[in-house]
């Protein structure tokens, strides 16, 4: 220690100290600042891995180079957002033919989905998966989201996103189980029967408002049971069958003689 202290006025000391300070700053910066989101840095190896997954699981229907065929859409140009939605909700790989692919447990891990998405995105430019900030319900305006939802979504998905039926066995699914990213990518890509709501139609901020509105519905109904939130038919059925039935039962009991 004394030997170092003796050289503290050496002419190289400022340079050495500066170098040391730079090294420490760099190391602290690297440790503290998070790296860019993993989805944004898809490497060539990810695309290769995605291609392998695609060939094994998707190419049977979509074709070896994702060109599609009769009744099966091409995946060239659908983008990572579409893959993320379809695969993370378990709609793809499709288990069987039907009016529409139902949502199930996803087959692939998050990493595998990202690899598949990277491969499909590499085939042609398309919408990308949104960042966590773009889909954060806390940053959205739920009131504006409600106005947008009423105009653009409620006719199929119901007033609070409980879902509803379409023609010939198709249906608009319940939105309560969807993640904010899935709601965003669904609007962006228009899966299956759903139309596309591109960023010129509903801007990214407006999409986040809609996510905030749907997030607010997850707290449930303040009035107790919502009876499935499917509208006045279910509520009237409840009132007429259960409510009037109970009243008739009470009237019969009042009129009956005691044993």
């Amino acid at each position: 220690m004394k030997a170092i202290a003796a050289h503290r006025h050496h002419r190289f000391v400022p340079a050495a100290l500066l170098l040391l300070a730079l090294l420490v700053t760099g190391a602290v910066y690297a440790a503290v600042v998070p790296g860019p989101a993993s989805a944004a840095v898809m490497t060539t190896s990810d695309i290769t891995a995605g291609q392998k997954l695609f060939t094994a699981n998707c190419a049977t229907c979509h074709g070896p180079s994702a060109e599609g065929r009769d009744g099966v859409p091409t995946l060239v140009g659908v983008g990572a957002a579409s893959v993320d939605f379809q695969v993370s909700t378990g709609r793809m790989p499709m288990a069987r033919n039907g009016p529409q692919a139902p949502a199930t447990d996803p087959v692939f891990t998050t990493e595998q989905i990202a690899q598949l998405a990277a491969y499909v995105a590499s085939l042609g430019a398309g919408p990308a998966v949104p960042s966590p900030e773009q889909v954060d319900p806390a940053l959205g305006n739920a009131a504006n989201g409600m106005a947008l939802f009423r105009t653009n979504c409620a006719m199929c998905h119901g007033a609070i996103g409980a879902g509803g039926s379409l023609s010939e066995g198709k249906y608009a699914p319940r939105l309560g189980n969807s993640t904010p990213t899935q709601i965003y990518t669904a609007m962006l890509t228009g899966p299956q029967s759903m139309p596309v709501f591109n960023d010129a139609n509903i801007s990214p901020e407006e999409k986040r408002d809609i996510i905030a509105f749907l997030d607010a519905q997850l707290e449930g109904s303040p009035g107790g049971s919502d009876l499935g939130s499917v509208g006045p038919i279910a509520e009237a059925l409840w009132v007429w069958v259960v409510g009037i039935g109970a009243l008739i039962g009470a009237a019969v009991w009042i009129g009956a003689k005691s044993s």
Partner: protein
Amino acid sequence: MSDETTTGDLVRTSPDGESLPERFENPGLPPHRARLADTDPAADKRAERTVVVLFGISVLGTIGALVAYFALPSDGSVASVRQTTLLLGLGLFLAMAGIGIAAVHWAKTLMSDHERSENRHPQRSSDETRAAAIEVLREGVTDSGIARRGVLKGAVVSALALAPLAIAVPLVGEVGGDWNVSKFRHTLWERGRRLAKDPSGEFIKASDVTIGSVFHVIPDGLREADHWIEEKAKAVVLLVRLDPRVLVEAEDRKDWSYEGIVAYSKICTHVGCPVALYEQQTHHLLCPCHQSTFDIADGAKVVFGPAKRPLPQLPITVDEEGYLVAQDDFNEPIGPSFWERLK
């Protein structure tokens, strides 16, 4: 109903040989049957206890509701509002239903059980009463002198006939505001009016409408219009861009679309519900009320359901800035076919 009740000469027999009476006679009241609580002191005590317990449940319900109100107040969150409502409602239900059920049970099991029957008296009044009533009416007519004072008769009839007009004319006159039904034939759309997004009112560039997307459209300047909500109900439009390969267009409507972008009225031609359930794969537009289905790729013709005519098409084009504008109003009344008769 045994043999001794069969009177008269005609005795019919049922298929299994038993004799049946010609007509059923009044069987009278069933014999009085004592209740369990009337005969058995233990049952009496039991019924009393039941009533006491029911009143007790009511008291507990009241206490529970008060405890819920004071001890578990709502902090404004949805979950706490739900909990408070549930507990208050449950307490109130027990408090009220306990009293009601206890009172009915008390009356049925413990209060006196005498049965009385009262016969209905005939509805026709006696002859003296009827004659007296007619005499009173006749006296009234004679007294008023209406038979001999002809002018008076005319005056009273005129006054009575005219008086309701003071109520009826303003009432009928105010129905619907005015009687100009022809305004239902026209909407806010006119040559050069821009298409705007509902609800923001932003204009729509033709290049923004990509294939498969759907825009819900209102006319520009809607909010400035008189009775804008009524105008919106007539003017709402659905905007879709279709792949030119699937789009079928009538010869005289080739220039009503713009590069595959078509605009149709959102008001169902059946009974006027907003048709907006668009399935982009089949290009079918479904009405949620009665399942009328329109094929947007083929002139919005009806492919299913009770609607009788296609949705009216709004002819569109773009202005020099690239925004979508209407070429003209709809060329037919929108909505239910009833208005078509006004053409």
